[in-house]
């Protein structure tokens, strides 16, 4: 089966500056987070994938060659920009119909899908109003609708929750997370908001200095550091007492609150050690889980920076 995006020694140079350094990666999944600091090369990579910039090496999107089949790729890809990209004076339904027609759909089909996309985006009652008068949240919804109106197989979403209040942000994430199921399309989410990635993405691509530093599942990103021997333990009371007992048993402990502690088990030990020690000390364990890195901590680690708080989630 063809991967969504295949990169083979992709190079992009702007004069003496190399924006992308021989990137080789195979990117697949349902919701992929594209992460990276300023100047990492995300924009350049997107432009190359959409066939808008010439480049060296090979890039394939949905099995199509980005160098020679840019038009076909853009017919099968939806793009939701970060900045406003509307046409003055148009209503949402006019804009979406126009977008679908520009992607080659016949007018009647375009209109039908424009209504469906706006309905999905939650703008069914406002779709005949000019976009100029929309709130930020509504504009984000129109951007989402125009990106999916032409029935794309991949959606590139650029900061889709930017400028949204917490409730609207949750609603937008709900809409996005449902898209692979309801619209049968994959999503590439470019965002600064790592909690968004943590919440909805199953894959991540981390870019830095024009290179892909990580490409894989979110679990792999966090699991690369997290081990089953690093535990988070919550007790009913006296976490420090359990900490002392576990330290005596050879574990390394850090008490984070009166009822919680982080435990690094000694080699060959399992979580049974915690249960045995707690029982011996007469303490009741309420919750025990594997200590995982947060996506933010993993992101910083991949970039070679250290998270301030140790990065546990």
């Amino acid at each position: 089966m063809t991967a969504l995006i295949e990169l083979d020694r992709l190079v992009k140079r702007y004069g003496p500056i190399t924006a992308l350094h021989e990137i080789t990666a195979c990117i697949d999944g349902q919701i992929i987070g594209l992460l990276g600091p300023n100047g990492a090369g995300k924009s350049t990579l997107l432009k190359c994938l959409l066939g808008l910039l010439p480049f060296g090496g090979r890039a394939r999107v949905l099995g199509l060659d980005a160098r020679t089949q840019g038009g076909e790729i853009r017919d099968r890809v939806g793009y939701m920009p970060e900045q406003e990209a509307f046409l003055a004076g148009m209503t949402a339904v006019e804009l979406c119909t126009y977008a679908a027609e520009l992607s080659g759909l016949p007018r009647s089909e375009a209109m039908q899908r424009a209504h469906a996309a706006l309905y999905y985006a939650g703008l069914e009652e406002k779709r005949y109003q000019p976009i100029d008068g929309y709130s930020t949240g509504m504009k984000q919804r129109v951007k989402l609708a125009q990106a999916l109106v032409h029935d794309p197989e991949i959606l590139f979403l650029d900061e889709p929750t930017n400028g949204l209040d917490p409730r609207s942000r949750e609603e937008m994430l709900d809409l996005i997370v449902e898209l692979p199921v309801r619209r049968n399309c994959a999503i590439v989410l470019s965002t600064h908001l790592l909690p968004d990635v943590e919440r909805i993405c199953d894959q991540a691509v981390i870019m830095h200095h024009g290179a892909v530093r990580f490409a894989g599942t979110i679990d792999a990103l966090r699991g690369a550091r997290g081990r089953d021997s690093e535990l988070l333990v919550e007790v009913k009371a006296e976490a420090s007492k359990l900490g002392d007992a576990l330290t005596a048993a050879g574990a390394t402990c850090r008490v984070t609150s009166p009822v919680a502690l982080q435990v690094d088990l000694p080699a060959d030990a399992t979580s049974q050690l915690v249960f045995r020690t707690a029982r011996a000390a007469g303490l009741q364990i309420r919750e025990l889980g594997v200590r995982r890195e947060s996506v933010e901590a993993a992101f910083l680690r991949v970039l070679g920076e250290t998270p301030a708080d140790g990065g546990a989630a």
Partner: protein
Amino acid sequence: MSAGQIHDLGYKRYVGTRRSLGSRWTVIMRHQLATAWKTWWRYKIWLIAALMITAIGAGLMYIATDKTIQIIAGMSGTQVKFADGALALLVPWYCRIGALVAMFVGSTLVAGDVQSGAFTFYFARSMRPRDYVIGKVAALVILLSLILLAGPLLLGILRLGLCESTEQVLEALPIVLKALAVGALATLTYAVVPLGFSAMIANRRYAMALWAAYYFVVGTMAAAAGLFIEPVIGAIDLSTALEAVTLRLFEFRLIGRHVMEIPIGAAVASIVAQSAIAIGLVAWRVRGAQHSGIGGSS
């Protein structure tokens, strides 16, 4: 908007054929025509003005078919019938209306799209810069041809209708062709040159002001320089260049007008050069916008 709930009308993958890449400029053209037609002041009012000029011209031609007029003379110095000269006299009026349509529609097109971020909207899709340019130019050509081409053509046809014999019809037939030629040249001029101005600035109001300043101020200065210094300089003014072409084509001499001293080659060259520069500017702006409009967040 109902919050926290997803409404879905159902979904089916589109399996029909898509419009070919090469014909998608027609979508832009149609959209542009619809946008211009939406408001009165952008286009409709000027179309009505052109219709009024055509109606007045037609009425005068009908009433004064056989009257001769003093201010126009044939190249040989002979007096000309009003019906033969009216068309040439009315072309500058059509051009004035064309300049206003160019100001309200043409000079704002690219600037408006840059200002609103529409290039991101266009080029995230399978649009090529040339599709965008062709679509916009085609829309402007249609809008302006209804004023600058249809008006003179109607008057030319009316002139044929006023003939009393087949010989007269054959004699007057070139008028229709000349009307077509002048109308086509004027249409292209007012469709393309203001579009170039709209590509120079990323603000629709400033672009409109720039076109107005160029056409009305710089043009008038060039025409004055042509009058007092060197006639060829007058060809820089688009309206003067078009008038010179018109009068040369119709082989009339407007008594007391220096415009006849501008060689037709210079007038046409000026229009072609300005149009070429304008197309170059639009292509440069649109190509640049295609590369800069899309991207991930940083």
